[in-house]
């Protein structure tokens, strides 16, 4: 991945125009609803405006190249973990927070460098990347020992672990995808399809939603929204088949299922955390969306599943 490669990549160019088109059409639809149907949708405009910034930023980093997108995604993981730490109160324990930050930096490094010695081909040190949780767990359980502390340490360790494995490492699979032969196809598809799945769930829920889906976790989510998003996500792999022309029917179906189901599970998993703590949003970083974690929640769940599915059937690097 590099700016030159992006310019010459048909996949990148296609996504550029697709994202542009989607944003323009969405803008027109929202304008129509606001000024012709005269419906007040101020909050949706706020959400849309944030998309107008997020989409070019993500595309820009993909365009800039492998190192840029890996560092960017690790930065996002850090910001996401920071929100998690602030929401759970873990942020008061600087040792734990520091250990998780170190872990996320390690994700970035293992995604950037080659295996120093051994038989791994290609960019990125897959072997270490995939066992990173072992070392981070080792580091995290070491902290109470070094500090000679007991009180509340299990909670801190557990929160730090969920924070690293879920927000850092699972999301970090997205960063490692930048090392794939078909990096543009995989990365852009996973990000685009997952976000479309989110938007579809929201839109279908708004339009047809009646039956609550998981009433205790997220009262606004409905079966209608979930099924609508599922249908869109099942269709997308065929619509965007140019992203991975070598995928067979089985892989296309699996891709649809991973994004369709995984996206909503990711969303709900963060909702479980939020509702247990008793907060509405993870932060206020993105106007109209809540925090960064509220935006990347689906990607956290989808990224590793897609990564290992594609890695199982085809050579990754």
């Amino acid at each position: 991945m590099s700016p030159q490669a992006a310019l010459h990549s048909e996949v990148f160019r296609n996504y550029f125009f697709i994202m542009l088109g989607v944003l323009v059409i969405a803008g027109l639809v929202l304008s129509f609803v606001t000024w012709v149907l005269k419906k007040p949708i101020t909050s949706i405009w706020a959400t849309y405006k944030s998309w107008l910034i997020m989409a070019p930023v993500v595309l820009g980093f993909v365009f800039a190249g492998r190192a840029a997108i890996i560092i960017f995604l690790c930065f996002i993981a850090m910001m996401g973990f920071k929100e998690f730490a602030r929401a759970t109160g873990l942020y008061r324990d600087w040792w734990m927070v520091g250990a998780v930050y170190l872990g996320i930096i390690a994700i970035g490094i293992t995604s950037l460098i080659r295996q120093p010695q051994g038989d791994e081909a290609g960019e990125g040190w897959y072997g270490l990347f995939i066992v990173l949780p072992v070392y981070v767990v080792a580091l995290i359980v070491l902290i109470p020992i070094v500090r000679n502390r007991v009180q509340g340490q299990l909670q801190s360790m557990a929160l730090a672990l969920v924070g690293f494995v879920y927000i850092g490492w699972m999301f970090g699979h997205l960063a490692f995808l930048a090392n794939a032969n078909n990096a543009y196809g995989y990365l852009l598809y996973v990000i685009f399809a997952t976000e479309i799945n989110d938007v579809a769930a929201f839109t279908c829920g708004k339009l047809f939603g009646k039956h609550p889906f998981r009433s205790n976790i997220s009262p606004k989510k409905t079966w209608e929204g979930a099924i609508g998003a599922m249908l869109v996500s099942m269709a997308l792999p065929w619509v965007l088949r140019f992203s991975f022309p070598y995928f067979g029917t089985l892989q296309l179906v699996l891709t649809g299922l991973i994004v369709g189901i995984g996206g909503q599970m990711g969303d709900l998993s963060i909702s479980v955390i939020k509702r247990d703590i008793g907060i509405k949003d993870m932060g206020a970083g993105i106007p109209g969306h809540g925090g960064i974690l509220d935006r990347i929640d689906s990607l956290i769940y989808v990224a590793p599943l897609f990564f290992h599915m594609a890695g199982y059937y085809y050579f990754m690097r």
Partner: protein
Amino acid sequence: MNWSYEPAGDLDQPMAERLRRFPREPDLSVYAARSCASLIIRSWLRLYHRFEVSGAEHLPADGSFVIVANHASHLDTLCILSALPLRKLHRAFPAAAQDYFFVSIPRLAIAAVVVNALPFGRRGNIRNSLEMCRHLLENAGNILILFPEGTRTRNGQMDEFKPGIGLLAAGTQIPIVPCYLSGAFEAWPKGKILPRPRRLRLKIGAPKTYAGFAAGKESSLQISADLRSAVAALAL
């Protein structure tokens, strides 16, 4: 199983709002940025302004205390912060004018991130601000930096001290450390965009306490005047 989560109090606020409130929630990235900025400021003051400190032994080693000083330029706060040990950096709170520093984003960033300022309301809500200061000093180890003149001097002469510091100190055991910074007016007077390379000297005096004074208007004026003469004496 009952775990207790304690979310940050400012969870639902954007960064600017979080920096504007006081007390601010601890934030690792803000602390890191402040530490880096402080190292840069310390070396810049030493190299560009040949900054010198004398009387550092007068600074209380532990417990909370207040530093009062003359106010001639924006360099004053930076100099006093640089005279403190680096490990106390995040516990030192210079009182800064709320109507000047806590309005626009760039100034807010400097006030809240770089100097760790306490938003002091100069108009109307002075009582609230003093209450905030008192609260801050109840936590052992906090340092409050005050410029009792209330604003930077226009002519290089030290103005009268406002009675707020007297209200804060009367009837308490809180040590008040008088300081005098010379050279700051020549280096960066009000209205100039950039500082000039003038020598800066900070003299730290012996701490004073005013436990014997009853809280009141009379005594606070007395204390303020006493502190002003203590600061002025360091100028000689």
